[in-house]
């Protein structure tokens, strides 16, 4: 019976609807990542859901997407940055009490590594355009190339942003400043 089968060595890929599975892989890390950017669990859940929806709508492109991780993170980043900007319109980080000073000197950081709230606060004060590459690089082990793909930037721009993000983060942490 096998001989009746039409064997096609050049069979094209099926139009992939890998979204369900793909997103199952990424749901948790994406949610954690978005939370790093927006510092708000409910919003992170919401944006994770929205990321799925957008991923679903772009499913026809997935076969052509080599780096699906970058693709997913790109969608999530756009959503998160946009959400942060919208929220900024009327209140900057209303849930994070960003007005509270973070009085840690930089040299104390190592001793206060467990103080994740302080880390999140410093991160939250970083402009979203810098926050995203720093989190992807430092927390998610993205290469510069992957970040470029995820954020729709060229690699040079990523390097510049990472450098500035690191310096700004360092400064924010050291100064406990509340202003961007």
């Amino acid at each position, binding site marked *: 019976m096998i001989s009746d089968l039409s064997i096609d060595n050049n069979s094209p*890929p099926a139009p992939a609807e890998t979204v369900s599975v793909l997103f199952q892989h990424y749901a948790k890390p994406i949610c954690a990542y978005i939370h790093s950017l927006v510092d*708000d669990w409910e919003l992170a859940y*919401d944006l994770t859901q929205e990321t799925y929806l957008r991923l679903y709508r772009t499913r026809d492109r997935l076969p052509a997407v*080599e780096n699906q991780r970058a693709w997913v993170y790109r969608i999530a980043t756009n959503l998160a940055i946009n959400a942060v900007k919208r929220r900024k319109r009327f209140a900057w980080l209303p849930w*994070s009490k960003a007005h509270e000073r973070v009085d840690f000197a930089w040299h104390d950081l190592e001793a206060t590594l467990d103080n994740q709230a302080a880390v999140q606060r410093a991160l939250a004060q970083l402009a979203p355009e810098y926050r995203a590459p720093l989190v992807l690089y430092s*927390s998610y082990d993205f290469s510069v190339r992957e970040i470029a793909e995820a954020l729709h930037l060229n690699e040079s721009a990523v390097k510049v942003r990472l450098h500035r993000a*690191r310096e700004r983060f360092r400064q924010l942490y050291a100064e406990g400043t509340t202003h961007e």
Partner: protein
Amino acid sequence: MNNHQQMQELLAIYDHLPADQRVQVDDHLQTCAECAAALAAYRTMDQALQQMRQQKFNYLNREPALLEQRLAATQPTRKPPLRAPWRIGVNQRSPLPVLQMAGAGALVLLLVLLATLLIGRNPLDTPVTAATPTTIEPTATVVVTPTAPAPVAAAPENQVTIRFATYDWAEAQYEPLIATFEQANPDVKVETIAIQELLGVDSYDWPDDANEQMLTKADVVDLFISPRTVGGALVRDLTPFIAADPTFAVADFYPNTLSAFQWDGGTWAVPTSINFNLIYYDQDRFDEAGVAYPQPGWTWAEFVQTAQAVTQREGDEVTVWGFVNTWSDHLGLIESQTGPLFDAATTNVAARLREPTVLDSVQRYADLFLQARASPFFKPPAPENETGFTQESTLVELGQAAMWSDFMINWQWRSTKRRIGVVTYPVTANRQNSTMIFADGRTLSARSAHPAAAWRWLSFLSHQGGRFGPDFLPLRPSLATTFWQTLDPDVATVMRYAIDHSFPVLYDRPYPTEQALRDAIAATLAGETTVAAALANVPTAAETLRQAQLASAATPTPPPVSAGTATTATITITYLIGYSTIEIGTVRTLAQQFQQDHPTIQVKVNYPPYQETLDLPAIAAAADCFDWSPIVYNPDERSVLVNLAPFLTGASALDPSDFYPGLLRQFTLADGVWGLPSEAKPKVIEYNKALFDAHGLAYPSSTWTTDEFVALAKQLTHGAGRTKQYGFAGDFYELSDAELFLQRRGGSLYDRSSNPPSFAFDHPATVAALQWYTDLTRGLGIKPLFATSLDASNPLGMTYAQRWALLNSGRAGMWTTVIGVPNTHYQLPAGLNSGIVPLPVGVDGKPAADPMAMTGYYIAAASPHPQACWEWIRFLTEQPNAVQGVPARRSVVESAAYRQQVGDGRATIYAALLDSYTPPADDLLLFQHPWLAKARPWWEEAYTQVVKGEATATDALQVAQQRAEAYRACVIDANAFTNEAQQQSCAAAVGLPGQ
């Protein structure tokens, strides 16, 4: 830039530097103390951010429910659809509309509440066997909190095992708690069991004796209880345990939580978390109307006055309603004024309905609709039309409500969408407590053989904080510090006021009376009867419902198949649902059917283990067989699969010609057949038959052309503005449909005649096709404009809601739909009589090759039971209900069972679509030349400009073509066909939209 500056920039990516640059930096570090310090700081920074990530993961592991449920709402097939629990028959409880208020932002609660509803069926149709309570011998056991775990000890000989029944999606979150508890209580072992598994059901459509079953088979149950549950002697009074447990801290509960479960001198459950109603308001709407924001303690008169003041009208049409009862919870708002009409102390609801205060409250509420006309009333849909999302909730989503009712847990979700405030329900002169507190609890079975141990577990859990996530207020003030700290101060003030002015509400209510009361209120709001007459009729109506319920209950129904049925199976195989969107319960039911014919094979059905990267090898390692996408072109990936070719010729062979050839080809390579196709999901056009009939139009045929499509759409288009009826509502991502029609009009995005291929954006046929499609919106006005890109500038959720609002209100003649992709957020009303037809044929009169999602079954190479797996997947391919899309086998699609399931007409269309399926040429081209896809943003930009009237099709596509060609030239020059980073650089160098 000097060398030091360059080095500083490189330090930021030190760990990812290529070796040659690393050497340069290292050299610089030898002489630059500043850089060395910076690098040390960056490393510490990386550690901190890594830890932060891990903490977030830990949080999500501990509290997975909110994320999972949110995703379940979006990806409905991972969980029972929302629709299912609302499907009610005459013998089933009506869902409390109040439960709907949980909404999309609080699906966890919704599901829990639903569960409660379905558990709490009327005892009249569920004779309960009263258990003889065992003697309670509470022990003064010290309940140890997780912060002080005892050393691990070997399990003592007298270790007892208690069974804890909870929801399947919540099991994982209890695992760390159990570990901590068992560490501190080595004489107790806690076993969790999913309620669904315990009941032998796969959804929330639970049997009438669910309470009894659960409390018979488990010691501790996540359960909502009522006086009727207690009356059935199913649960144990916890009072003696509480009295003997010095750690329990009775005073450390919010008002109306623990006390909600206290009556008849007993305490019947321990609350786990609380929730309550608030009124939300859109501050922009208030500002537009110049109305002051409401404050807690406002009166009903002020509420009505405010609702009228913020209502906006255009002529006779209301464009913004003053108040929208989001989940049609009319009874809830009335009870906020009257106090609970159903509670542990209410023995005669009918008597309460005659009280003047109740009559007055219902009348005042009706006046809000009928006199003030500040609130919209929608007749409750028939049970079979329930979607879980009300028309009122759509108004809220669309921003057409100035105030609306909702649960407090939805605050953060709502606040991300617009500028809102919250306020408590209004009060009356005699009643200041207007906030209904909903508490859920855990119960101890009266039949538990180990009540003392079970109590220790119960008490331990009561100290563990919020059950569902950060938005739920934990039941104990001592656990709620973080909750309040992270809340906006103004919102916190309102919520504290609400708690201080609250009263408890029970979920479990006598169905006939409650439903009769809801019907009476609905009739009043519809203006069909007076309040007095409607309420007076409640007892009669309730009795009628009760009789119908009893009659229905008398009809024997087959008992549910127990998941725990003893088996004689000698082989157990694990089947994982990796890719399909089918509900797990359906597959488990099929597995039970399979086992009847194959008694030696037991199939365990599950989802793959949750992990960050689940690929084909990973799922193959965890399963004997599974479903997955048809892409198996990587030889390494195929090595984890069993070649099915020998099975196709073996003793239990099946005829491969029974599969639609285009589908089987997707799983077949020169070296074998690596999977069996299970389903395909084609895209079709669905149309509203009623609208066609009303316009005297014949339904489209399967060979219709694009010109005929336009002609029909024109005739179906009427009106203007907010009530306009459109001939065609496309996909809410515009380009999804645009590209399908582009092919039909002879256009193409790619030029295959070049080598390497090029772009055909500015080809005259493509330009004309784009012009044609965008004219549907701009020139002809027969199609609304939805999202033109998927970037963050699009309010996609809003677009989604708008499209469904259009479809649901019957204002779309035709729309595109993908067969087999369920949607629980929005569903077409069941009463809507729709037909489907393939998309119009192409200019050559032939159907275009459209993308079609597919799934297939695989056997893992490492499985010791390939033959058993083969029998199982072979069985699956024969089942019409094993997939949500179109089955891959002709014999199934043509079977009477399937035709009955989907209808003859649809089955015929599906068969034709699958018969003629050939993979789209563009898909093949992109697979062979993935670098082409990077030019897509320019195509998307051109589409957007044209459909918005910002450029002509010729101009926009010419620009897109120039950029795409420049990109192509760059790729060729750099020989970057396989270098994605270089491709990206090329695209960026040309200039991507928005760059």
